[in-house]
């Protein structure tokens, strides 16, 4: 919402400075976004008088002038044809910035003659495009500030424009009168009443109006108009044009400008039809049947859908109710007879139509927020008067259908509650005075909101009005007492705690945590088992962000690709965040995902560098699971999803419960993301790790044996497809009390191994640690256990001890 200071002062009698008004507006909730004060750039310039002008000795077109200024006589060289003795001019001194030529003046020497400033043209001061000569003022004293002269003689040129942000609850502030009312309530002046003239029509309106019964209840309860005949349209007066231009509107013609003037001045959008172009003598307000074509004033043709509100004559749709008038029946400079419309259009119906047709107009903006339903007729009378004043003509009687809706309602003002909610001591008398100033009617402790405040719908709204006028800036903070005495209890849920643990653990492992978008491209989503319609965003902002991500890897791979294209080939990226399984609230789960690409380390003299492989990813997955409290022994299966390498990835879980997946990413996926080098990853399903059954900080007792532990190594020849864990588990089972741990310490595979052990064979080497508890082991004890281990492992793997 934009307005100018002088326009505001039409509605507000005030001595307040611009700065005070700006402060009050923002503080009242009408936030000032911008103030354009044309006086600011003209502030340095003063009025001077040319005493004497003579030809420049070395230039035909230049004159050397003696100019009387507030600092005495100065010599100025001037090229304007009208520079001559006796004229009153606008002086720009050395050091001044001249906006129209974007220059800060200095003392110049023009063809050998010193010049102490310049005398400005209108264009040089950005007052107009006039540049045929320097400004000649008809009045003004030497030394007088030019902006002071302008304020008296051409006030429109120094009228500050204020742009405020209007929150959706304040349609009343979409008119300058409403803004003035707020300022008056704050004590910044007196609200000037709008005097509504009583206009008596001298003939019946030749155009009738008729609201379709389907719309009387809701869409258009009240429609009024009248014909004014014999008007003379044309450019509107300069003062009106200046104001409209200042707020960014293009003056069109007096009739159209008047409607805009009312839209902004009084929040009363109007429409003017050229009555001679309305056929059939009736304007019908009706729901569209659907399919009607309508050429609007913006030059575009719209096809109406069934139910949209339209105003039609015999020829068809002439106006889209409350949104935009039609080109055909619009007013032009030739309009002689005008039909002026003032109606109340229902906010929801207007909004629905406007959104469907994507038409934004000042009228729609206001009607969908709610204009004053009680102001339909007064607005019509006021506008009629202005048309008569500016265009002449003769007004008809009113043509009205329906009546203003009754918005009367009242709410209890509880002054104690106001104080309790706001936490500020606002005396009851002040509370009542504020509401009265805002147009509320108080009857005992009941407050009736004015017809222009559709947003006030309860007691809480009264509190807000009182508080904002009293000024929340004055609010003094009051300590919040502690919720409970004593040391605060932990506040994170177990899952929140886990998320934190997973994140910090992953960073400890060397990953750089990323935050990537929750939505990804459809093709990317499909690679990770997603991309269904259920997770599709209906109105995506780009084709790269159409589907909720089924997995965090897509975003990380994308980030990896961007980093690789910048030359960073070795990457450890991670994300901890939501992945989505469906489109219903709650169809999301927390993933902790790490992605390793390229090599584990930079090249160094120690030979640290090697390509990352699945055992890196597995180690990290296990570290995260351990940090989350997963049990020491879990199952590893190969039931991986499609985006993993089928032979080089695994699932860590317990029964059907998948806790983590690790491994190489499928080459096809890597190709789709254009990733170079090996890529391995892990994904931990944070919530799937079982929570401990007993929650106690106490640890089980530690049992340490003083007896010497013994380690024995075994190598087995097995089929190449046998998994190490089978051997480890078998060995572990050989003697559950004596065997403390079993670890694979070597494997021998490949061609050389097959050459030694036979085709399709490999060898696995285990080290078994035996920890006796009651007596030192004898060689015979060890032999007995060893034999059992060999037997168990051979049986489980189908292999044999390597000779």
């Amino acid at each position, binding site marked *: 919402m934009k307005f100018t200071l002088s326009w505001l002062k039409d509605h507000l009698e005030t001595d307040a400075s611009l700065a005070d008004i700006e402060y009050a507006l923002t503080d009242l909730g009408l936030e000032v976004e911008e103030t354009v004060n044309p006086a600011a750039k003209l502030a340095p310039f003063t009025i001077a008088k040319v005493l004497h002008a003579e030809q420049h000795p070395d230039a035909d077109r230049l004159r050397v002038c003696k100019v009387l200024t507030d600092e005495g006589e100065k010599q100025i060289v001037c090229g304007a044809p009208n520079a001559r003795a006796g004229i009153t001019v606008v002086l720009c001194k050395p050091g001044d910035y001249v906006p129209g030529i974007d220059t800060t003046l200095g003392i110049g020497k023009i063809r050998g003659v010193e010049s102490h400033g310049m005398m400005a043209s209108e264009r040089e001061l950005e007052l107009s495009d006039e540049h045929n000569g320097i400004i000649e003022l008809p009045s003004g004293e030497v030394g007088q500030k030019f902006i002071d002269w302008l304020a008296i003689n051409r006030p429109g040129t120094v009228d500050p424009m204020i742009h405020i942000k209007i929150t959706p609850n304040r349609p009343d502030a979409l008119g300058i009168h409403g803004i003035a009312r707020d300022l008056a309530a704050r004590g910044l002046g007196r609200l000037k009443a709008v005097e509504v003239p009583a206009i008596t029509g001298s003939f019946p309106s030749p155009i009738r109006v008729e609201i379709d019964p389907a719309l009387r209840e809701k869409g258009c309860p009240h429609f009024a108009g009248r014909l004014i005949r014999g008007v003379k349209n044309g450019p509107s007066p300069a003062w009106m044009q200046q104001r409209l231009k200042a707020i960014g509107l293009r003056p069109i013609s007096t009739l159209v400008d008047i409607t805009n003037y009312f839209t902004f001045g009084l929040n009363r959008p109007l429409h003017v039809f050229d009555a001679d172009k309305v056929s059939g003598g009736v304007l019908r307000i009706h729901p569209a049947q659907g399919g009607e074509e309508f050429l609007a004033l913006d030059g575009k043709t719209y096809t109406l859908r069934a139910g949209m509100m339209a105003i039609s004559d015999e020829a068809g749709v002439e106006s889209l109710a409350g949104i935009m008038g039609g080109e055909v029946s619009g007013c032009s400079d030739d309009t002689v007879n005008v039909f002026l419309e003032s109606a109340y259009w229902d906010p929801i119906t207007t909004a629905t139509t406007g959104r469907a047709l994507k038409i934004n107009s000042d009228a729609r903006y206001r009607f969908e927020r709610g204009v004053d339903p009680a102001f339909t007729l007064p607005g019509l009378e006021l506008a009629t008067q202005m048309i008569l004043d500016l265009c002449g003509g003769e007004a008809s009687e009113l043509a009205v259908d329906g009546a203003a809706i009754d918005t009367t309602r009242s709410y209890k003002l509880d002054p104690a509650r106001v104080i309790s909610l706001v936490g500020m001591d606002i005396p009851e008398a002040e509370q009542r005075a504020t509401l009265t100033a805002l147009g509320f009617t108080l009857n005992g402790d009941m407050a009736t909101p004015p017809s222009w405040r559709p947003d006030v719908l309860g007691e809480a709204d009264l509190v807000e009005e009182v508080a904002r006028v009293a000024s929340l800036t004055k609010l003094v903070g009051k300590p919040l007492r502690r919720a409970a005495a004593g040391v605060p209890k932990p506040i994170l849920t177990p899952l929140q705690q886990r998320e934190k643990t997973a994140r910090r653990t992953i960073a*400890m492992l060397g990953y750089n945590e990323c935050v990537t978008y929750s939505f990804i491209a459809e093709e990317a989503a499909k690679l990770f088992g997603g991309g269904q319609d259920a997770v599709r965003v209906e109105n995506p902002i780009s084709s790269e962000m159409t589907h909720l991500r089924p997995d965090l890897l897509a975003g990380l791979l994308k980030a990896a690709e*961007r980093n690789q294209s910048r030359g960073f080939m070795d990457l450890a990226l991670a994300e901890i965040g939501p992945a989505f399984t469906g*489109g219903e609230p709650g169809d999301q789960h927390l993933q902790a995902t790490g992605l390793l690409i390229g090599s584990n380390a930079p090249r160094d003299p120690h030979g640290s560098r090697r390509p990352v492989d699945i055992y890196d990813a597995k180690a990290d997955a296990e570290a995260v699971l351990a940090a989350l409290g997963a049990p020491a022994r879990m199952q590893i299966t190969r039931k991986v999803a499609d985006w993993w390498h089928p032979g080089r990835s695994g699932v860590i879980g317990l029964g059907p419960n998948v806790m983590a997946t690790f491994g190489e990413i499928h080459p096809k996926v890597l190709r789709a993301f254009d990733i170079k080098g090996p890529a391995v990853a892990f994904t931990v399903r944070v919530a799937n790790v079982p929570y401990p059954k007993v929650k106690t900080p106490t640890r089980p007792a530690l049992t340490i044996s003083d007896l010497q532990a013994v380690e024995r190594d075994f190598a087995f020849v097995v089929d190449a497809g046998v998994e190490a864990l089978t051997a480890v588990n078998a060995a572990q089972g050989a003697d559950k009390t004596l065997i403390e741990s079993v670890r694979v310490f070597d494997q021998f595979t490949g061609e050389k191994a097959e050459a030694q052990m036979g085709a399709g064979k490999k060898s696995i080497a285990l080290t078994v640690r035996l920890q006796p508890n009651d007596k030192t082991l004898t060689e015979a004890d060890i032999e007995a256990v060893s034999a059992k281990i060999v037997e168990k492992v051979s049986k489980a793997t189908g292999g044999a001890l390597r000779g």
Partner: protein
Amino acid sequence: MDLTELRGKYIEAVAKAADESSLEEVRLAALGKKGEISLLMATLGKMSPEERKSQGAALNVLKTEIDAALRAKKQGLADAALNERLKSEWLDVTLTSRPRPMGTIHPVSQVMDELTAIFADMGFSVAEGPQVESDWYNFDALNIPPEHPARQEHDTFFMHRAEGDDRPPHVLRTHTSPVQIRAMTEKGAPIRVIAPGRVYRMDMDQTHTPMFHQVEGLCIDRDISMANLKWVLEEFCRAFFEVDKVELRFRASHFPFTEPSAEVDIRYSNVGGQLRIGEGDKWMEILGSGMVHPKVLQAAGVDPNEWQGFAFGVGIDRITMLKYGIPDLRSFFEGDLRWLRHYGFSALNMPDLPGGLSR
């Protein structure tokens, strides 16, 4: 027996021994089983008691002295040999160290931990809610009915609706405020929660991304006022920005779910491009807040005649940028390694109040 000569001979021999083997020879010659001094000791038995007494003492002194000399010499030779070896054991200490991986925590995660630390101290717990949200939780329950103009201003992302499913489409939550409803419905009043998380708006330009982060705050009790809200926000800003003094300005505004509503500005200065909170003469909007609207309390099953309180919503990314001097919002979500390393935090840098939030 004159032992002076004997002493002189062996002390000199010890001194002259150039390595361990020649030293051993000296030892054997003097103190070995057949050594000169050992043999002399053996003759003591044949002496008279008086002779034995004086000779024995003298021999023992000599033996001890030579033994000590041998040991000292041996140590000296070992030291010399070690020194010799160490001279050859030179490594280039300026050579690159073996790599240790160094990960980083994203600034948004770090700031969420900071928020948790601050609000936990004021008795707030952390609530969560789904990111795909029904339009009832995202709008209706927050006093934004279907045709409310505020809905248009939210630039909402809608989820696809299958043919025949006539429910209003779900939305990607446009704010963290629906968590207010979920938390109150679940726990009732009194309640103090914050709800940090991802939110979504259809907006992408220099200063907007279609996904960003907010933290919601909610405090409901019997006598909570807007003055309490101001104090909580002042304390939060003071702790979060780690300055002794902050100045907040409450400006009346409008949110459908609070009444009265206020936008909150913070005083700052801009000195050579560096923002300083708590000083200067500029004001920056940092959050929206207000007293929870009675209709919102009702929607969550809390009786507005009995309970009242405040809510606020802060843009996490925005305050992160402010605190840590990060210029561009879009860079938060690009995963640029250089950015992650520069603005990220060490895993062990866990924000807490005793140790300070940022270290």
